[in-house]
C-alpha cells in the first residue's frame, strides 16, 4: 500500500501528525503571548487540513477543505436566526447529505452495498469549547505529562489490542461464517466488541491527550461502558458526547419524557434509530439502532415494573453480564451488512 494511502487511513497514527503539527503547535502555543495563540491554532489547523485533506485525499480532501473555509468565512457575514443563517445551515446539511449519505440512497436504489463515508469522533460543542480555548492554561508541566501519557495509552489500545484483534474480526464475512464451526462465531463477535471499544476509546484518548497539550480539557467520551449494569447506564458511558448530543438535539425536542408513555417509548426508539444512521449509512445501522432502541425501551418498561434496583451481589453481577452480552449481540449488525449479519445469526442459532 502506498504511503499516501496508509496516511489517509491513519492520521492519528502518523509521525507527520505529531512532529509536523501537534508538538510544534503545542510548543509554540505554550511560549506565545495570549493574543497570538488563536493565530497559532489557525496556522497549524489550516496547515493540518491542507496537508491531510488536500495532500492525501485528493479532490475529496480539497472539497472538504473548501467547504470548511467557505463556512468559516460566510458564517461571519450573517446574524444568528437570519434567513442567511438558515440558508447556510441548509447548505451544510445538503453537503453533508451528499458526502455521507449519497452512497446509502444510491445503494438503496440500485440494491448495491457500498462503503459509506464516515466521520466520527468525540463531539465538542462550540459553547463548551470556546471558553476553554480562551482561558489561560494552568500547569503546563502537568498538562504535557498527562497529555502525552494519554496519547501513548491511546496508541497502545489501538496497536496492541484493537489491531491485534483484527486477525479474528476479519473472519466476520459471509464466506468464513458459512464454513466456520458455529461455536467460534460468538468469539468473533466478542472480539469485535473489544476491538471497537479499544479502537474508538484509543482514538478518543489521543484526541483528549492532544487537546491537553494546549491546556484544553476535553470532556471524557468513555467511562468503563462494558462494566455497566443496564443498557441505559451503558449509553451514559459509551460515546458520551454523542449520547449528550442526541439527548439535547433529538430526544428533548421530541418531547423527551414529558409526553405520554407510548410516545416516550417511540422517542427512545427514534433517538436510537437516528444514532444508528449517524454511525453509518446502511440498513444494518438502522437495525443496530433499532436493537438498542428496543433494549432501552425494554429497560425503561422494566424500571416501571421494578422502580428500585436490587443491590444483591448476584443480581448486580448477573445484570452486568446480561448488559455486556446484549450489547455484544448487537455488534454483528454494526460491523457487517444486513444480509451477512442475518447469515451470522442464522448460523449461530440454527446451525
Amino acid at each position, binding site marked *: 500500500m502506498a504511503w499516501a494511502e*496508509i496516511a489517509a487511513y491513519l492520521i492519528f497514527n502518523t509521525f507527520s501528525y505529531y512532529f509536523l503539527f501537534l508538538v510544534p503547535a503545542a510548543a509554540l502555543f505554550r511560549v506565545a503571548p495570549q493574543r497570538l495563540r488563536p493565530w497559532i491554532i489557525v496556522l497549524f489547523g489550516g496547515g493540518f487540513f491542507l496537508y491531510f485533506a488536500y495532500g492525501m485525499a485528493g479532490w475529496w480532501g480539497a472539497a472538504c477543505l473548501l467547504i470548511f473555509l467557505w463556512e468559516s468565512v460566510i458564517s461571519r457575514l450573517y446574524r444568528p436566526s437570519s434567513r442567511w443563517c438558515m440558508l447556510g445551515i441548509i447548505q451544510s446539511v445538503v453537503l453533508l447529505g451528499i458526502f455521507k449519505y449519497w452512497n446509502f440512497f444510491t445503494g438503496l436504489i440500485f440494491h448495491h452495498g457500498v*462503503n459509506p463515508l464516515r466521520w*466520527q469522533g468525540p463531539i465538542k460543542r462550540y459553547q463548551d469549547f470556546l471558553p476553554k480555548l480562551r482561558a489561560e492554561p494552568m500547569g503546563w508541566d502537568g498538562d504535557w505529562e498527562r497529555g502525552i501519557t494519554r496519547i*501513548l*495509552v491511546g496508541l497502545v489500545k489501538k*496497536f496492541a489490542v*484493537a*489491531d*491485534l484483534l483484527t486477525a479474528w474480526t476479519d473472519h466476520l464475512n459471509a464466506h468464513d461464517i458459512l464454513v466456520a464451526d458455529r461455536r467460534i462465531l460468538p468469539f468473533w463477535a466478542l472480539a469485535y466488541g473489544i476491538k471497537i471499544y479499544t*479502537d474508538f476509546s484509543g482514538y478518543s484518548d489521543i484526541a483528549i491527550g492532544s487537546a491537553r497539550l494546549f491546556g484544553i480539557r476535553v470532556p471524557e467520551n468513555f467511562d468503563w461502558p462494558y462494566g455497566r449494569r443496564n443498557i441505559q447506564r451503558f449509553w451514559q458511558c459509551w460515546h458520551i458526547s454523542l449520547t449528550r448530543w442526541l439527548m439535547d438535539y433529538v430526544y428533548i425536542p421530541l418531547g423527551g419524557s414529558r409526553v405520554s408513555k407510548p410516545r416516550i417509548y417511540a422517542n427512545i426508539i427514534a433517538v436510537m434509530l437516528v444514532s444508528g444512521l449517524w454511525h453509518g449509512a446502511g440498513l444494518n445501522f438502522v437495525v443496530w439502532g433499532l436493537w438498542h432502541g428496543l433494549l432501552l425501551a425494554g429497560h425503561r418498561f422494566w424500571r416501571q415494573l421494578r422502580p428500585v434496583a436490587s443491590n444483591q451481589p448476584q443480581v448486580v453481577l448477573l445484570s452486568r453480564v446480561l448488559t455486556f452480552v446484549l450489547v455484544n449481540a448487537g455488534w454483528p449488525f454494526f460491523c457487517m451488512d444486513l444480509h451477512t449479519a442475518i447469515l451470522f445469526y442464522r448460523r449461530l442459532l440454527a446451525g
Partner: protein
Amino acid sequence: MVSNLRNTLEYLAGERDEAPEFLSGRFELVVRCAVWALAILLIYAFCGQSSKFIYIDF
C-alpha cells in the same frame, strides 16, 4: 477495592490527575516513567499493522 483499582488504572492511563495515595511521592515519578517506557515498547512492538480507525473511514 474495585474503586481503588479503577482510580489507579485511570491515573496510569493519564485520565486522572491525582495519583492514588500509595503511588504518590518519589515513587510516582518511577511509575510514570515505567508507564511511558512500557507504552513505547508496546507501540514499537505492535505498530505497522496499518489498519484504519474504525470510526474514521475515508
